[in-house]
C-alpha cells in the first residue's frame, strides 16, 4: 500500500508537471471557447446576412408568391428579357436568379431554373420548389371551384400529451434533455478514455525506453506499478478536467458578456426544438429537468466512468508494455477504438430512437460498450436488474482484463527489440 501511494504520487506529479500537459490544460478551454464563440458569431452573421435573389417569371403567376424575409430579398425582373436580367444579377453580385417558364396554371408544370455564382443551399432550393408547387396546387383548387380559404380554416394543429401509466406527464422535449445528459456523459467518458488511456500507455512505453522499468520492478510488483500508473494518471486527468470545466465556464460567460455574443445561438436540433416549443411545453420541460434522478445519475456516472476507464486503461497499459515505441502501437489501436466508436454510434442512433430496444439493451450489457451506452440510457430510466447485470459483467470483465493485462505487462516490460504480434501476446499469457 505504501508503495502504491508512492507510485500514484510520482505518476500524478510526472503528468501534472509535464509542460505539454500544463499548456494543454490552459490552452484547451481557450480553444474550445474560441471555437464556440466563432460558431456563434458566424451563425449570427449568417442570420443577419441578406441574400438578394432575382426572379424572372414569364408566367406572371409566381413572382408575387416569393415574400421577402429576414434573410432573403426578392427583386422582380420579369419585365426584362432573360439575358438582361442575368446580366444585371451578375453585375450587382446578387445571390442568384430564378427563371420560371411560361406555363398554363391548370395543366402545366413550369420549367424552373436557378442561375447563381454558387450552388444554392438545400433550404433555398426547397423553399423555391415549395413556393411554386403550393401556388400551382392553389391555382388548380381554385380552377376546380374549391374555396381555398375554407381549407386554410380547416387546418388544425395537434400536440400529443405524453403520460406514462403512472400518470406522470412528460414533454416530448424532455427526451432531448435526457439525450443531452446521456450523450454528454457517454461522450465525456469516451474522450477521457482515449486521452488518458493513451497517457497511461505512453508512460509505460517511456519507462521501457528509459530502461528504468527493471529497477522499479525489483522493488515493486508489476501489478502494483500498473495499478499506480492507472490511478495516478486518472487523478491527473480529473485535475485537468476540473480545470477545463471551471476555466471553460468562466471564459464562456466572461467572453460572451464582454462581446455580446450569445452562445446559445449555436443551432442544435435540441435548441431549435426548444425555441419552437410553446409555453406550456417549456413549463413541462422545466418540471422534467428538475425531476431527473440526479443522485442516481451521478452515482451511476461515477460507477461506469471508473469501470469503463479502468477497463480500457488496463488494455492500453498492456499494449504499452508489449511494444518498444509508440509507432508500433498502431496495429493494437483499432480493437480499442472500435468498441468505443461503436458505443457512441449505438448511443446516438439507437438509444435516441428507442432507448429500451434490443440493440440498445444488448450493447448496454456487453462490457466493452456498456459504460458508454448505459450512461446514455440511464436518463430514460433503465430497470434495476439490467443495470445490475451490466455492472456485474463490467466488474468481472475488469478483473479478467486487469489480470490478463498484468500478465502481458510483466512479460512485456522486460522484452526489448521485439515487435510483438497477437500470437506472441497470446504466448506471453502462458509464461
Amino acid at each position, binding site marked *: 500500500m505504501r*508503495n502504491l501511494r*508512492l*507510485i500514484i504520487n*510520482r505518476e500524478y506529479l*510526472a503528468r501534472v508537471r*509535464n509542460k505539454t500537459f500544463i499548456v494543454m490544460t490552459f490552452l484547451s478551454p481557450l480553444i474550445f471557447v474560441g471555437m464556440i464563440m466563432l460558431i456563434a458569431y458566424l451563425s449570427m452573421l449568417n442570420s443577419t446576412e441578406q441574400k438578394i435573389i432575382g426572379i424572372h417569371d414569364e408566367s406572371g403567376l409566381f413572382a408575387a408568391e416569393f415574400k421577402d424575409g429576414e434573410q432573403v430579398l426578392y427583386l422582380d425582373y420579369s419585365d426584362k428579357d432573360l439575358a438582361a436580367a442575368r446580366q444585371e444579377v451578375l453585375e450587382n453580385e446578387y445571390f442568384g436568379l430564378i427563371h420560371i417558364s411560361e406555363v398554363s396554371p391548370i395543366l402545366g408544370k413550369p420549367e424552373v431554373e436557378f442561375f447563381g455564382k454558387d450552388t444554392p443551399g438545400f433550404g433555398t432550393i426547397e423553399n423555391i420548389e415549395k413556393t411554386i408547387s403550393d401556388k400551382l396546387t392553389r391555382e388548380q383548387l381554385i380552377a376546380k371551384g374549391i374555396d381555398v380559404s375554407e381549407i386554410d380554416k380547416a387546418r388544425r394543429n395537434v400536440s400529443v400529451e405524453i403520460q406514462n401509466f403512472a400518470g406522470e406527464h412528460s414533454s416530448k422535449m424532455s427526451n432531448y434533455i435526457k439525450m443531452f445528459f446521456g450523450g454528454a456523459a457517454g461522450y465525456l467518458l469516451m474522450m477521457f478514455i482515449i486521452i488518458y488511456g493513451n497517457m497511461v500507455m505512453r508512460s509505460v512505453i*517511456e*519507462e521501457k525506453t*528509459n*530502461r*528504468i522499468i*527493471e*529497477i*522499479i*520492478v*525489483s*522493488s*515493486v*510488483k508489476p501489478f502494483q506499478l500498473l495499478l499506480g500508473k492507472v490511478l495516478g494518471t486518472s487523478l491527473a486527468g480529473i485535475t485537468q478536467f476540473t480545470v477545463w470545466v471551471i476555466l471553460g465556464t468562466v471564459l464562456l460567460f466572461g467572453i460572451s458578456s464582454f462581446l455580446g455574443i450569445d452562445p446559445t445561438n449555436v443551432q442544435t436540433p435540441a435548441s431549435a426544438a426548444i425555441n419552437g416549443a410553446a409555453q406550456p411545453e417549456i413549463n413541462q420541460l422545466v418540471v422534467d429537468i428538475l425531476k431527473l434522478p440526479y443522485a442516481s445519475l451521478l452515482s451511476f456516472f461515477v460507477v461506469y466512468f471508473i469501470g469503463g476507464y479502468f477497463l480500457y486503461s488496463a488494455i492500453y497499459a498492456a499494449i504499452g508494455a508489449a511494444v518498444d515505441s509508440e509507432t508500433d502501437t498502431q496495429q493494437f489501436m483499432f480493437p480499442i477504438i472500435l468498441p468505443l466508436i461503436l458505443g457512441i454510434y449505438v448511443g446516438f442512433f439507437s438509444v435516441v430512437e428507442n432507448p429500451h430496444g434490443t440493440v440498445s439493451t444488448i450493447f448496454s450489457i456487453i462490457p466493452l460498450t456498456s459504460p458508454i451506452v448505459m450512461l446514455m440510457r440511464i436518463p430514460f430510466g433503465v430497470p434495476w436488474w439490467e443495470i445490475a447485470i451490466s455492472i456485474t459483467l463490467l466488474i468481472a470483465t475488469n478483473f479478467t482484463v486487469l489480470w490478463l493485462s498484468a500478465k502481458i505487462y*510483466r512479460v512485456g516490460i*522486460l522484452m*526489448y527489440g521485439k515487435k510483438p504480434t497477437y500470437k506472441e501476446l497470446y*504466448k506471453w499469457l*502462458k*509464461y
Partner: protein
Amino acid sequence: MENLLVAENIYKRFGNFTALNNVSINIPKESIFGLLGPNGAGKTTLLRIINQITMPDEGKIYLDGKPLHPDDIAHIGYLPEERGLYKSMKVGEQALYLARLKGLSKAEAKERLEYWFKRLDIEAWWDKKIQELSKGMAQKVQFVITVLHRPKLLIFDEPFSGFDPVNANLIKDEILQLKDEGATILFSTHRMESVEELCDYIALIHKSKKLLDGKVSEIKKEYKSNTYEVGINAADEVTLLKELEDRFQTGPARFKSIQEDLKLSIKLKDHENSNDLIQFLLSRARINHFVEVIPSVNDIFIKTVTQDA
C-alpha cells in the same frame, strides 16, 4: 562457510525455449560470486528469478536459510543490465523515490543519499535532470540507488558494461569496500579480467545449464595441467633441447624476457612436481624464468564452453 543465497534446481522455460535447466548455485556469505557465461546463457533470467521479477517453473530459492519471500526485496539491491532512469525527473527527487520504494523513510533516504553523493562527488547534480547528465554520471546515480538501502545481497548484472575505465575502477573499489562492510555480492559478466580481480567464487552457465561452479582457487587447481614455463640459458641449446624432449613433454612458450632465452613450456607427468624439473635443469642450464602455468578464468571458460559444444 554459511551460504547467504541458495538456488536449488531452478528450471525456467519460455514457450519451447528452456532458459534455465536444473541450475543450482550456493553463494557464501560475504563473498563475491561471479556468474559467468556467454550471451544468452540464462544469466539474466537467473538474476531476475532471484529478484522475484520472474518466477521459476521449478526449483527453490533460499535467502539466509529461509525460502525467498516477497518482502526480501528490501534485503536485495539489484542493478540490472538494462538500466536507466526517468529522463525528465530531477536526480535527487528520482533517487529519493526509488529509495523510498525500497522501504526507506524520506528522512533516512535523504540522509544516506547526501552521504553517498558526497562520497562519489556528485552533490552538484541533485537538482539536475537526468537528460542533462552524461551516461557515466547516470551510472553513478544508479549505483548509489542500488546500494542505498544497505542490502545484504547486492546483484549486479554486467556492472562494468558501458562504464569508462575511470568509473569502472571506482565502482570496482566500491564493490570491494561493500564486501568489507559485510555485503555479499553476486554479479554476472562475460568480462573475465574483472572476474580474476574480484571473484571468490564463480559459476559458469552455458546454454541454460550450469557447467561448473566453486571457489576460484579450487577450480584453478583443478584445471591446472602441471605445466611450467621456463626461460633458460645453456651453452649447448641443441643438446639440451634434445634431452628435455626425451624426458618431458615440451612446447614453445611466449613470455616477455630481457634475456636471450630458450623459452619453453614443459608439461610434467602426474606423479612429478616442480622440484623434479628444477633438479633436471639445474645441472644443465641457468634458469632465468620459472613459473607454473595457472589457467586464467578466461581459459577455463573457453575450454569448458568449447568442450561442451
